[in-house]
């Protein structure tokens, strides 16, 4: 118990002084997770909306269970898959992305993408089925229909963003394998926590854990405010 209290006190001290190495780790975490989230949203929301709006996609009987499975992809398995792709002997070895932040973004995008697609699809399907029909009758283009439906389903779409963000900012398996935890280059908060715990630096590990939690809270608070501002509670 005393260890925990001491660690907490030390952690607060470390947070107050915010040394440059710590700042670098936090910055990289935001860059990697933010980049992956952005890519996953840009591709995932339209894809989810398209699947949700099509009454009968060919092969939906297989596609939807696949998406649902993808929503629970084990990060460490994704990490292994991306590692083998990017490794020297792998098909994408020429890119030299293994042990780089770019490779980490790729792995986290793969983890986040099915979540965005699946939850967006569910949100769009939850909208009154008459709405798209009426919009089309009023002469709206496919695109306008999709956009209006997405706005109508914004609560569910925000949930997709929150779930995707939460799943990748907290994962350690994929970034450890693909990034390699290089100091100052691919070390993010989660891999730093693993390392410091292994080294017995519990205070620093705890401080990093607190930063991770606060980042997640601040981001989720921002998403929530966005929702509220749109007049939705």
């Amino acid at each position: 118990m005393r260890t925990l209290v001491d660690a907490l006190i030390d952690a607060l001290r470390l947070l107050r002084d915010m040394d440059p190495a710590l700042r670098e780790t936090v910055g990289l975490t935001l860059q990697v997770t933010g980049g992956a989230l952005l890519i996953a949203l840009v591709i995932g929301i339209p894809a989810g909306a398209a699947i949700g709006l099509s009454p009968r996609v060919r092969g939906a009987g297989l596609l939807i269970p696949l998406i649902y499975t993808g929503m629970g992809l084990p990060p460490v398995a994704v990490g292994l898959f991306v590692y083998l792709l990017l490794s020297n002997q792998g098909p994408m070895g020429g890119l030299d992305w293994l042990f780089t932040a770019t490779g980490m973004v790729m792995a986290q995008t793969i983890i986040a993408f099915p979540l965005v697609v699946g939850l967006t699809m569910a949100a769009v399907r939850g909208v009154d089925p008459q709405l798209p029909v009426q919009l089309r009758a009023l002469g709206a283009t496919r695109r306008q229909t999709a956009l209006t439906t997405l706005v109508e389903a914004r609560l569910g779409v925000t949930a997709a963003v929150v779930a995707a963000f939460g799943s990748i900012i907290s994962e350690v398996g994929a970034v450890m394998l693909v990034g390699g935890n290089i100091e100052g280059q691919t070390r993010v908060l989660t891999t730093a926590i693993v390392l410091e715990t292994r080294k017995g630096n519990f205070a620093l590990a705890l401080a990093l854990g607190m930063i991770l939690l606060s980042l997640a809270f601040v981001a989720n608070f921002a998403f929530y405010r966005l929702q509220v501002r749109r007049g939705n509670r």
Partner: protein
Amino acid sequence: MRNRLVLLMVVALTATACRSGSSEPQVLRLATTTSTADSGLLEALLPGFETQYEARVDVIAVGTGQALSLGEAGDADVILVHARNREDAFIADGHGTARSDVMYNDFALVGPIDDPAGVQGTAMAADALVALAAAQAPFVSRGDDSGTHTKELSLWEEAGLTPDAAWYQSIGQGMGATLQFANETGSYTLTDRGTFLSQRESLSGLEVMVGGTTIDENADPALLNPYGVIPVNPDKGGIDLDLAQQFVDWLTSVEVQRQIGEYGIDIYGQPLFYPDSQRWRDR
């Protein structure tokens, strides 16, 4: 629902209470380095101890740094590590009762086959590091406070250099992961020979630069890697000193020392560890 939860808790508590009964074998918590566990040595040796003493050995395989902190915190009964200066400090600070020699092997500097820094065949590791720094050749460091990492830092010190540049990458991972990393990125790294030999198959891009093909060819005394075993000081509470002492006596006995010396010959063509206990030397 709530009733069921209470019932579950009662069952769980009863089970725990029964578990701590005397019918259970005694448990020895051994904190050791990843090298002794990953090489398979402990897996080969420990069953002998477990049957002889009707005990169960729980192996906690971590870096030397964490193994020492586990001992310091009283979370282990005995530690088997390799960082001589830190072991001596551990005893001096009163965390352990006594250190005994167990075995040794050696470190080697490995690097990419094309050897851009031209260090292959250098006799002394420190000289090779000077050449690596001059050539700015990529170097991977364990950076995890392990015995190997401690050794690497002391070699840089011996070379009179502080590596802190773009070509020096500290990844904070175990030996296996570090070797894979060096193999993928074409970097140099310091490794214990045992882990390098046991992973040889998947390290086609790496070769030994300093240290030769066997320990006999290793000309640098700084690359010698001795392991010691230390029972944790019982004043921390909850420490099984008797069992820890029995373990030390068993591990340093001539019979077990012989097993250590034979381990790995059939697979790697050379032993991974060389017996070195006082009783073995006196035999």
